[in-house]
């Protein structure tokens, strides 16, 4: 019983804390962010298991976490608005060549981040070559380039 509650509490806690912290927090832009993510996972694991190292405890926790995730995805599918609250939505940062600075400021993204994505995904040099830049749910920035021929 104890095991299931621990799993459920930590699942909900993490869901809320990651949602509140914003898409770009802990997004692994640097190795440091990545290490931080790993550390958070490690820390959580200790809180989950306590000093119960039995196999059944581990398996129950995994079942609890995955089952909650399946339930969450089913609820999200049924109620779109709930999905919006949990996952957020995509957000346009660069609209037809125009930077939306207010949004970028709130989401803590700068021009450099957009240019980095532009280089990584499409090998683009300037902001002017970008038609749309979109901040995705997972914190990644996707780029839609301007057509060259036109």
């Amino acid at each position: 019983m104890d095991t299931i509650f621990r799993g459920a509490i930590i699942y909900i806690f993490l869901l809320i804390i990651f949602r509140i912290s914003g898409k770009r927090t802990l997004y692994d832009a640097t190795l440091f962010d990545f290490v931080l993510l790993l550390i958070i996972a490690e820390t959580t694991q200790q809180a989950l298991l306590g000093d119960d190292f039995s196999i059944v405890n581990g398996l129950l926790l995994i079942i609890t976490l995955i089952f909650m995730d399946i339930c969450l995805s089913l609820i999200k599918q049924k109620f779109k608005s709930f999905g919006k609250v949990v996952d957020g939505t995509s957000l346009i940062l660069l609209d037809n060549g125009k930077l939306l600075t207010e949004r970028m400021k709130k989401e803590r993204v700068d021009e450099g981040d957009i240019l980095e994505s532009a280089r990584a995904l499409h090998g683009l040099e300037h902001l002017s070559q970008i038609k749309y830049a979109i901040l995705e749910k997972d914190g990644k920035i996707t780029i839609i380039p301007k057509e060259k021929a036109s």
Partner: protein
Amino acid sequence: MNKHNGELEIDEDAPFEKRFWTVQRIGWLIMLLVILAAMFGFTGRGGLSGINKIKKASQSQSLVLEYDRFQRYQVSDKLTVKLQQLQTTAPTITFSKVFYEKIRVEQVVPQPEKVEINANEITYTFSISQPSGDVIFYTKPMHAGSLEVMVKGPNNERVPISMFVYP
């Protein structure tokens, strides 16, 4: 490789995936059942009394045992022995072999006056000045599987307990 629409080469097997969706849904149901079983206490660590928390008494009620039926490998638990209607100030509690072979008794409160292992039994002798008293055994199962222990009180009353230890 199959060709979809005569152009897209893909290893798709839609009928198989469709059948697998059913398997998936059954799997989810099993997961739910496991979680419910765990909530009721069938996997140890808490749960409803009667399922996990067991209270078992001898006929004369002079020996009452409280223990968890479902335990986990190498996870500490406790067994409370309640002695009533004591006719001696040096009562003994005796356990069968399994109790010292498959379980590690980490601590006994109060500390016994004497412990002896012989003839497939372990006997704890206590010093209790009043007609009733409790003894707590902090135990750690060192063996997975089912354990059957026979507990014998000071009046030679026997209470069998059976536990299941998850790996």
